[in-house]
């Protein structure tokens, strides 16, 4: 107890030095927690946008489809029975909120004056809106619902602008069938979609029934099966179980029929997300360095200034272990108080920022709103790291002080 009292009073004794060191640690903690909060919020926001607006959380394809996806191969669609098999498997996953089916196809879009290439998703709109509820938000007409009837088409903004198309315009889509023949159909434009970063971000949409007619398909075929989960946190466990289950489904050549991908494997944003994680780690390393160096500096000074006092304590029968504990306690208290102050300050700042609703744009995504938050686990991790590093930094000076010879310490001026 007396060591605790001495430690606290020695910290207070050098108010300016203690305050500056504590301030440095507080700033470090605030920096880490704010950066973590912002980066987590940013990642969640962008991932949410990507998954809710196009990709979904998981996708199932025929084996090899994703590696050839740039060709939009109709020959690699899943056949009706294969789709049925997957549907029956998916019913065993209560974590799944919605499932939708798409045929992805390439075609020529004509406004009767000009023609250009277009990538299209043939969908069941009522299912699609359940797996990708963000699609309505991408419609340029404010408040419009994402709906398509047979004979209607929704086209991406870049093509609409280039081809001078508006809602109610009539267009022709010409597409190659599986057997190589060509077919064309007219459509009415019922919506224009804003662009989105990543795959499918500049695709158009048509009704599934129209795709069967356009591509002259007799039976149901599906290019990709989109899965949305109730809770994003269950992604890893669902993916693991589902992947294991579908990998057991083999074709006649004893090879897997299906492949399963999560959003990260399908979107380039996962690389950006990884870089953000790397940045967070870098900021944490900076924090650790700040704490380590500042506390080490303070404790080295503290020992140097108090050699004579250490000698007096030793003369009065203080054991070396107690001297060690006294200096460790100083480092610990400095780290603890600074961490608590840093946590209070950063959570306060985050609360204010959340109420202010900071708007920003990322790529073509406009008016995104950041809501920085950090989990209790993250706060505890930062707290334990800072306090642990504080103790570590105090250890060397503390050991040095406890190993002083009393007679040498008393002689020190």
């Amino acid at each position, binding site marked *: *107890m*007396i060591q605790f*009292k*001495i430690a606290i*009073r*020695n910290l207070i*004794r050098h108010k300016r030095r203690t305050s500056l060191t504590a301030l440095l640690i507080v700033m470090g903690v605030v920096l880490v927690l704010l950066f973590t909060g912002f980066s987590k919020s940013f990642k969640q926001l962008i991932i949410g946008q990507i998954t809710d607006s196009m990709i979904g959380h998981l996708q199932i394809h025929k084996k090899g489809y994703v590696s050839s996806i740039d060709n939009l191969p109709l020959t690699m669609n899943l056949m009706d029975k294969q789709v049925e098999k997957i549907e029956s498997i998916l019913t065993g996953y209560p974590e799944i909120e919605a499932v939708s089916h798409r045929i992805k196809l390439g075609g020529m879009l004509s406004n009767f004056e000009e023609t250009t290439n277009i990538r299209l998703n043939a969908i069941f709109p009522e299912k699609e809106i359940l797996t990708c509820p963000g699609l309505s938000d991408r419609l340029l007409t404010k408040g419009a619902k994402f709906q398509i009837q047979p004979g209607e088409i929704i086209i991406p903004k870049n093509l609409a602008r280039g081809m001078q198309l508006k809602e109610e315009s009539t267009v022709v889509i010409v597409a190659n069938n599986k057997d190589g023949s060509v077919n064309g159909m007219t459509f009415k434009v019922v919506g224009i979609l804003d662009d989105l970063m990543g795959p499918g971000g500049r695709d158009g949409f048509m009704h599934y029934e129209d795709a069967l007619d356009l591509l002259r398909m007799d039976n149901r075929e599906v290019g990709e099966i989109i899965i949305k989960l109730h809770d994003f946190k269950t992604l890893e466990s669902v993916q693991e179980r589902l992947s294991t289950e579908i990998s057991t489904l083999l074709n006649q050549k004893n090879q897997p029929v299906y492949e399963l991908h999560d959003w990260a494997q399908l979107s380039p944003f996962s690389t950006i997300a990884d870089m953000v994680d790397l940045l967070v780690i870098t900021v944490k390393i900076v924090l650790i360095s700040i704490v380590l160096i500042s506390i080490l500096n303070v404790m080295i000074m503290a020992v140097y200034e108090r050699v*004579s*006092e250490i*000698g*007096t*304590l*030793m*003369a*009065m*029968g*203080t*054991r*070396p*272990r107690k001297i060690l504990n006294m200096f460790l306690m100083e480092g610990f208290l400095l780290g603890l108080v600074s961490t608590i102050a840093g946590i209070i300050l950063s959570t306060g700042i985050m609360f204010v920022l959340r109420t202010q609703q900071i708007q920003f744009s990322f790529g073509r995504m406009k008016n995104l709103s950041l809501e920085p938050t950090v989990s209790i686990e993250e706060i505890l991790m930062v707290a334990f790291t800072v306090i642990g590093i504080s103790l570590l930094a105090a250890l060397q000076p503390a050991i040095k002080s406890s190993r002083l*010879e*009393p*007679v040498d310490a*008393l002689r020190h001026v």
Partner: protein
Amino acid sequence: MSLIQIEKVKKVFSETETPVTALDNISISIDKGSFISFIGPSGSGKTTLLNIIGALDKPSAGRIIFNNIELSTLNRVAAADFRAEHIGFIFQNFNLLPVLTVYENVEYPLLMTRNTSASERRHLVENVLDAVGMKTQMGKFPNQISGGQKQRVAIARALITNPELVLADEPTANLDHESAFKVIQLMHEMRSKFGTTFVFSTHDPKIVKEVDILHKLEDGKLIGTDNQGGVAA
């Protein structure tokens, strides 16, 4: 009755290029309850001898027996425990801990030695502070009291555990004449009251006059002992 036996103690400092012999073959016996002093010029070995007697340092040769304990055999922890239990120190520069109050400075040795209750500690500390005339100042910090008062507190701190031996290294060197006289009188009183053995190192003629036995040191050698027949314990 002998409290300390100093037998052929030698101390050589060999950190420098030329080793320095600080103590050379010193043999003395110190009786319990005596009031003795080592005198001699600077560098004569007074402080070194006090440090060795107080288990703060070890001799290069010879041995010190304190109540059947051979001090040179003690390791760091055992030496700390020994000092806490048996020795009180009074320093030339008082060496009070600046972050502790007068009360806490005096209480500190008790916390290192005994498992006494807070109320018992308070009783002991107040008694000894009362004995040195510092009870009214016990809430003050060392920087709020005078040099003479600091030395009184240092004496109280040295006596709080009721040690068998108090070692005082130049205790009056930083005090004015009046304060020095009062401090010596106080130590006399303490010796009479508690039966404590006092060993000084000093240049101060005021102390020299007051001690029972005077050991003269020069260049690390004991060159004479003067039994002045002072106040017996």
